[in-house]
């Protein structure tokens, strides 16, 4: 290669790297600035609202979509919030719980799925859903590193943390979905006729699942539960674990085993898998694991009664 070609190659490489570095930081800082003012939407606004309000809350729900769409916290406590988030598991919730204020008395209701608890393939990948806080929050950054979800490339490309959320953030900045001051984090699923039809067809074609015979608690779940227990004990939080209703559950062994483990460890655990067994009307459901708004109303009422019982027992 000639000297001039080599020089060109070096120049263009350096130019591309420098411009990408600068542009990346400009984009990152711009989205970051916008993002901090967004309090609506699942792509970041809900998390901002939680971080802003969590020190005033008495009752908080955590977990996956089965927490988010199933419990209306407003009906349980006027100072409450549902921080359930689609596609998340225990590590995501555990990290958010660690961001709660120290020593303030609060009730934490955390959804736990028996199926996920025994899934050996889970390694805490859901923590990456908090990556927007990677450069802003030490606890989150440490957890992301702890579960090896920090990509080397992310240290160079900061804007990568807004991967697939940038559009949502910008949209919610200019056109907020709702007034966050009246939002409690609960997103009911209003089921259309089309969705109901799809679920009926799925049930018609249902093939029973093969249940695993080797059920061992996932190590990430094990350590997260232990962390949670310690944090809640040290910081005046009442921790309640629960499992949401499921329309058709072919594998019961994992429910039994999880109940055993949690009881042994001294957790309060409510398994509501079969809550609708006596009246399994399709109008309560969107799909096999998600309740409709109608089902969620009934389930919220049950949770409310149970929480009240605990509160009454705890009263001096």
């Amino acid at each position, binding site marked *: *290669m*000639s000297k001039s070609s080599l020089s*060109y190659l070096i120049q263009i490489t350096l130019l*591309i790297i*420098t411009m990408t570095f600068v542009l990346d930081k400009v984009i990152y800082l711009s989205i970051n600035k916008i993002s901090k003012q967004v309090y609506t939407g699942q792509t970041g606004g809900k998390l901002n609202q939680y971080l802003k309000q969590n020190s005033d809350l008495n009752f908080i729900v955590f977990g996956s979509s089965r927490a988010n769409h199933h419990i209306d916290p407003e009906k349980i406590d006027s100072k409450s919030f549902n921080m359930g988030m689609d596609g998340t598991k225990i590590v995501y919730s555990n990290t958010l719980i660690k961001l709660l204020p120290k020593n303030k008395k609060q009730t934490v209701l955390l959804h736990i799925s028996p199926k996920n608890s025994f899934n050996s393939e889970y390694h805490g990948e859901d923590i990456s859903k908090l990556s927007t806080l990677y450069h802003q929050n030490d606890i989150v950054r440490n957890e992301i590193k702890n579960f090896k979800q920090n990509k080397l490339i992310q240290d160079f490309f900061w804007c990568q943390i807004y991967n697939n959320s940038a559009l949502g953030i910008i949209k919610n900045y200019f056109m907020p979905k709702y007034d966050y001051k009246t939002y409690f984090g609960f997103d009911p699923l209003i089921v259309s006729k089309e969705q109901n039809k*799809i679920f009926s067809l799925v049930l018609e*074609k249902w093939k029973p699942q093969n249940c695993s015979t080797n059920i061992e608690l996932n190590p990430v779940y094990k350590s997260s539960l232990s962390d949670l227990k310690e944090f809640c004990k040290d910081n005046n939080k009442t921790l309640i674990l629960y499992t949401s209703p499921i329309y058709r559950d072919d594998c019961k062994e994992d429910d039994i085993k999880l109940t055993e483990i949690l009881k042994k460890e001294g957790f309060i655990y409510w398994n509501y898998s079969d809550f609708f067994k006596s009246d399994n009307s399709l109008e309560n459901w969107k799909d096999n694991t998600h309740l409709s708004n109608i089902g969620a109303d009934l389930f919220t009422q049950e949770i409310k009664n149970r929480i009240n019982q605990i509160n009454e027992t705890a009263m001096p």
Partner: protein
Amino acid sequence: MLFNSIEFLIFFPIVFILYWFLSDRLTLQNLLLLGASYIFYAWWDWRFLSLIIISSVIDYVAGLSIYKAKTDKQRKFWLMVSLVANLGFLSIFKYYNFFAESFTQAVSSFGWQPNDLTLSIILPVGISFYTFQTLSYTIDIYRKSFKPTTSILSFFTYIAFFPQLVAGPIERASNLLPQIEKKRTFNKDWFNEGILQILVGLFRKIVIADTLAIYVDTIYGDTSLYNSSTILFATFFYAFQIYFDFAGYSDIAIGTAKVMGFKFHQNFNLPYFSKSLTEFWRKWHISLSFWLRDYLYISLGGNRKGIKITYRNLMITMLLGGLWHGSSWNFMIWGGIHGLVLSIEKYIKSNPRFNFLNKFDYLGYPITFLIVLIAWIFFRAPTFGSATIALRKILFFKPGSLFIGDINSLTTSIFVLFLGVLFDYYLFKKNIQLEKFGTHFSKIKIAVICSILIILINLFYSSSNNFIYFQF
């Protein structure tokens, strides 16, 4: 190794630096390319490397033997050796189970229940591509349109050259082999064009195609669950998913080769901007369609033996073209639809009665797209049953509300698809080939465009899926 993997991000710069470091030593440079190509392939499964080596040995010997043969009989013999060996490998690995299953089903309809004849066979990645490449080499020598190389290193490098090894473009020996055998010099324009094409290809693949795949995979997972609007929408998405997936792969391949001083032929030229299916096939997977034209259609007689034979040849070519994509009846039907429409177009074009249609040629764009869209149903649906369900729902359209799924993902899909189509429309309007897009750009302009593309990729990339054409 995938182009969109971290491994390739490390592998390629190392190869690139070493490659240009050896620019004054052609043999060493080609050795490096061959070694790198074998590592690239072995990353997926080293065992199948032997298949490429065996195929290369056979065709190297066959090529020289055809050239040196003194009689036609000898020439034919060596051509047959090459055809039987290459098509034999392809038949065993790709088609054995399909024919065994079809045979079992056929005889069971007569009441005979034979034992299960299928075997547990892994399909070697890229076998369809390098088989066609090696075949073109021996056929060209047999037709006396190309002289074989005596350099075993050059030939082996030609077969295994990593940018095009696993999913094309199917480069003919007449184009690539002379480039391997002569000294390459670094060319600034080619570097600019190549680097831009690589990044555009990456954007097309990991941003557009992979994002669209989320919706398409959900709907085509079970077509019986969704209504007409949803199936149509998913098929529309699929048309663009497969285009951006494969065109994206070709862009990365062509760009990668170009920055190393190799010029591949264009493989996609904005195919959805076509006024007829004939034009579509001049713009879609060009290296395959020209291969089928030159080695199958023309070998069958092309259009030289009368109109009826021409229709037959078109149908055979497209049916086999369909089968090349995969061993299932769905691919044959896909090829059949294309063959049928190509024949109809040929009939219309050869008949002066239909000249009045020229006035409405602008309607050719939507009609061609619609035909291609319908045919894609058979290409995408996992079974014949699910394809017919999808087709019925589209043809007997009953309006209904669209299945949204994850709203965030759907919004991103529409946004990135809009960007992709807008860029293609720009190229179409300005009559620019993507291969030439970076020509004459200043250093600054190249760097700005590259950094914008890199940032867009970071902001919108979707989780990595295999390239669709790997399965072929």
